[in-house]
């Protein structure tokens, strides 16, 4: 692997960049591997990288039906944060945030992780109570999260309107300074390159068509459009398509897949220094390093794999953005797209073993998977290597839907009175 640095860039520039090697070779499938990851998104590529780097399993294939990073990895709004309420979630997402820090150096590939801060707006007394609970819990869990007054929030994010007469006035905000954004494609490419360098085969345009199990029920390998590939360990990290893949192994899952939309504005000069989220108004916004305002929209109400959302969802999202940031009303939407998110009943992920020996799963991240990328990859790798979950992902098992030990962050913020 050619080491990336300012020096190597300079040297290659003198040669008109003619000698850069491929970031990752396009591998042909071998007959068998020690481990197979289904799905070459950030999570799957990360799992392959950590299998090779941390857990010594280098004979690994990542199988992707399209092109790597082409699913939700390349379609999300790139928000990174870990200020979750429950211990289980805080540990899970903070594991990821710790890995985000230093990931560029680890991969020798700049993933543009930007700790610009994630600010969550409180618009009513219930929001305030809920955020205070988060802040107290985060503090005792060692996760940074602090309360800002409306004036402090405005200082941190000048475009914010804190007009007390607004329909949804800003009563304050919870700020996680370590939160921020990263460049989504770079994460997939960085993992792919680093995993390849450690011997991982990345096999694109190869769809899994079946999962083969032996007489004892254990995994023997996967059938693909490019033939059977044997392995005793298969990890499925296929986001929206998880249900379909798991059914190939005879497993029905507690998942539903919904269209989720996002959009960007035309690029403008820097105006928006952080990430702002408002659950009450349904607005999620940051500004990319290109200058585009990156805005997350909501899910459509029905299950779908069409990657095609409805206009009224976008209308509502932009109305919400303009409500909190009236100065953006004349900005223009440049591009709007959809992804498929898989959602569990408690909206927390499933990351661990399955009832099928040798079959592992990482799914159900809903709208929040990007922030977990390095953590999910590492924990899936750990679980596959040891055939037992790490203590961090142990609570995110399938059993919880049977025994009732749900991890329901959204319900914790439920509105009532």
């Amino acid at each position, binding site marked *: 692997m050619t080491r990336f640095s*300012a020096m190597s860039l300079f040297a290659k520039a003198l040669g008109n960049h003619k000698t850069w090697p491929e970031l990752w070779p396009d591998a042909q499938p071998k007959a068998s591997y020690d481990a197979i990851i289904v799905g070459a998104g950030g999570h799957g590529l990360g799992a392959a990288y950590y299998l090779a780097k941390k857990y010594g399993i280098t004979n690994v294939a990542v199988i992707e039906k399209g092109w790597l990073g082409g699913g939700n990895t390349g379609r999300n709004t790139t928000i990174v944060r870990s200020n979750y309420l429950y211990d289980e979630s805080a540990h899970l997402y903070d594991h990821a945030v710790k890995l985000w820090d230093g990931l560029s150096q680890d991969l020798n590939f700049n993933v*543009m992780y930007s700790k610009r801060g994630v600010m969550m707006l409180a618009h009513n007394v219930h929001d305030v109570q809920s955020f205070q609970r988060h802040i107290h819990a985060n503090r005792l869990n060692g996760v940074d999260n602090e309360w800002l007054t409306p004036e402090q929030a405005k200082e941190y994010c000048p475009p914010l309107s804190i007009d007390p007469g607004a329909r949804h006035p800003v009563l304050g905000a919870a700020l996680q300074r370590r939160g921020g954004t990263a460049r989504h494609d770079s994460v997939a490419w960085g993992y792919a390159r680093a995993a390849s360098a450690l011997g991982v085969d990345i096999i694109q345009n190869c769809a899994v068509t079946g999962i083969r199990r032996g007489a004892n029920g254990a995994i023997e390998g996967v059938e693909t459009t490019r033939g059977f590939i044997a392995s005793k360990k298969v990890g499925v990290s296929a986001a929206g398509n998880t249900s379909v893949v798991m059914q190939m192994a005879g497993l029905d899952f507690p998942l539903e897949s919904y269209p989720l939309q996002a959009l960007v504005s035309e690029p403008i*000069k*820097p105006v928006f220094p952080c990430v702002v989220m408002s659950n009450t108004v349904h607005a999620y916004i940051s500004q990319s390093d290109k200058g585009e305002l990156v805005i997350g929209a909501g899910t459509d109400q029905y299950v779908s794999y069409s990657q095609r959302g409805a*206009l009224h969802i976008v209308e509502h999202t932009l109305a919400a953005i303009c409500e909190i940031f009236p100065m953006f009303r004349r900005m223009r939407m440049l591009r709007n797209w959809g992804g498929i998110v898989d959602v569990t009943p408690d909206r927390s992920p499933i990351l661990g073993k399955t009832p099928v020996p040798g079959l592992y799963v990482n799914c159900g991240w809903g709208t929040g998977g990007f922030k977990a990328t390095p953590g999910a990859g590492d924990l899936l790798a750990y679980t596959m290597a040891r055939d037992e979950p790490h203590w961090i992902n142990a609570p995110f098992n399938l059993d919880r839907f049977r025994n009732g030990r749900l991890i329901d962050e959204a319900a914790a913020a439920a509105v*009532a009175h």
Partner: protein
Amino acid sequence: MSAYRLDGMGRVNRGAPVNFTFDGKSYQGFAGDSLASALLANGVSLFGRSFKYHRPRGLLGAGAEEPNALVSVDRGGGRYTPNLRAPAVELYEGLNARSQNRWPSLQTDFGSINDRLGRFFPAGFYNKTFMWPRSFWEKLYEPSIRRMAGLGDAPTEADPDTYSACYAYCDVLIVGAGPAGIDAALEACAARKHVILIDENDELGGGALADPALAAWLETSLRDLANAPNVTLLRRTTALGYYHDNFIGAVERLTDHLAQPGHGAREQLWRIRAGEVVLAQGAIERPLVFEGNDVPGVMLASAARTYLFRFGVAVGRNVAVMAVHDSGWKDALAMAKAGVRIAAIIDLRETVAAALVDEAKALGIRTELGSAVIGVAGRQAVKGIEVSRADGSMRQKLACDAVLMAGGWTPSVHLWSHSLGKLAWSDDWGAYLPDVPNENCRCVGACGGKWSFGSGLNIGALPSPRDPATFKAFVDFQNDVTAKDIALAVREGMKSVEHIKRYTTNGMATDQGKTSNLNALQLASSALDRPVQAIGLTTFRPPYTPQTFGALAGHAKDALFQPVRKTGIDPWAEEHGAVFELVAQWRRARYFPKAGEDMHAAVNRECLAVREGVGIFDASTLGKIEVVGPDAAEFLNRMYTNPWKQLEPGRCRYGLLLREDGFITDDGVSARMAPDRFHLTTTTGGAARVLNMMEDYLQTEWPDLNVWLTSTTEQYAVIALQGPKARDVIAPLVAGIDLSPEAFPHMAVREGTICGVPTRLFRVSFTGELGFEINVPAAYGRHVWEAVWAAGQAHGITPYGTETMHVLRAEKGFIIVGQDTDGTVTPFDAGLDWAVGKKKPDFVGKRSMARPDIVASGRKQLVGLLTDDPSVVLEEGAQIVLDPNQPVPMKMVGHVTSSYWSATLGRSIAMALVAGGFDRMGETIYVPMPGKTLTAKVVKPMFYDAEGSRLNG
């Protein structure tokens, strides 16, 4: 008259001069001009700077495809818009436009240092560096990168304009009013269909506007359509996206072209549902990729034709044409015949249709076949070109002041792609054409591949004798993506068009690749030595061109963003100085401060007034559902945790509602009005959810039950009168009800009248005091409220708000669903096992409560807390630990759900969810706060009048 405006040409109104400024300098154009045509006519060729290298740029096109000439327009008063395409800005008197992404000026831009250093900034350079030393990333590298971002400046003021939205329905929607669209409209009109014809330009006609031969046909056709009652013509309207079931979103620009915009909406969103959609969006000419192809003055041949024939402006005085397609010859010949000097026509093809060559020769135009432009002289304007044979021989220089590129045509299949119509590669076009539709949709004219521009070559880049890795030949002009960037991406292993696009940012600029996608595909195809179809096609995303946030938000602004629900009594509260809070969609009075009081003082006063005298509270926001039918009791018995069948008419019961997963979702006191009639109440936020849930079970699980559910939330005003003097206050007002404790005990309901208004009078209490909830028809709410208020004056009646309500109920340990429960709490956790019917075989959520984790020990349970220091009020949400000395991360065992100062008790009280809390009575728990740790004792969550004597008084 400038030398670039030709007499007798074009459609602008020479009798109507229009004054405008660009970068502070004054110019004059004519009505009918675009900003682009007017500046061209004034001899301006430099319009902007590119994104990355800050290269000087002029116009590439004359329409939606324009990547270079982006300007900001400021109308004053917050009416500022960045990134507008100059060809799409209509001229009006006083227009104030300025260029972007340059400092200090468009002519002298320090950012162009990036161009000199360009070889160190190839595609993806940022992935390869800025990693060392690590601390520099946050302090230096990243801030520097972010400062380089963006094109135009961000708006800084709130937009004063308004926006509108509407729905429309038609038999046939035609997008694009060029010749093909107009023909389709005439045909549908004749068939008596209801037709909507929309076009993004200010004038209908499309390509016909630049074709004098079609002028008469265009005028007649448009007159016929305008006169037809079944045709709606929409100009300045962009179809932005094609959604499910022939649903098209379009934005009409209403005022941006007016010198005086007036007070109407600036733009209107059209949401159109069409029986059939006809796409007639035409095709966009492709630029050619060669060194210097971005110098101002190098543009599309079709654009030059449009500027000449539509606007009467010649793009140069000595124009060279670089063609690989017949259409370039046709444009050149038409321009020559109109009086523009054509310096030469250069074509990469060795042979070109004889008719074209002969006509050029007849017009005295020099032709260079089998040749290519290999360089352009000039930096801010074209001064000349260098031409060579395709093999690099016979290099020669030619003087010219403009270069026209004719690289073939790309059908505009954007909306077709949005509709998920399939595309097929056409070698003839060198482009993707519509194939199998997914909706009731067809493409006509050029966008359907049904228009002949002649034939041509499909190439990625023109040949050059120089090493392609050493010069910049632009593919995506705005984002500064060059042919060598595409080559680098391929070299680095990018093999799919999506990877190439994302690695180089090709096609991701504000023009969304309208002129660059196909060239990039051809280049990648050559580099990979694989057919174009094997590399794929990037998906087209809405919108077709960028659209205003405000237009998409439509009417949903300020008060219309989400209506605030207010009760009939709300105005009284406002008049009496209430401070409000927003709860779900409602606003509720939170407290009623007297002069000089803060919330704490007001709430203390209100609490004591209720405990000692009488308080009045607007509870109208509570959800209400009328449950009627012979099986009403059976239905409620199945829905709620507690038994309902034995409840006597005239009595009330607290109902606890679970989700099927066993967790508390709602609660409320409900009354049996008659054997077949119940009056249910729900939480304020839960009303709609509960009704939907009940309808679901009733309709789909138990359709055999004969029950009707009706929302009555807004039919009743609810006045809570609470306190030992409550009975005394209403006694004189009530008729037909015996109010004595014996005849009307706690948890009973009676019907009668109050102030002559029919009422359902509940004797219930959420405060622990003697209390009534007076339900009257909503329209009489304020009337009855004021009557009670007046009657209460003698008793010191005090209005109170939600905050006091919260304190009073907490003193009694009554829960608030959503505050003391959070979607993970079962009835047992909440200490409400008394409200669960043990003998009932089933109810919603019962089975889930038998799951292993729900019956396990150590679950968080709702308890009371009394701080060791009674003056300390714990923070709601504060976390509880058993060992305050452990390191972070600490083992937390619960959190404070409710916490108040109790004026009644003269100390603080709190409720908390604590692991194994029921077994910890009397134990000390710790609440670590920043800088200190608070301590409290676990107690039963009942702080006042445990025996309930006041309630039953």
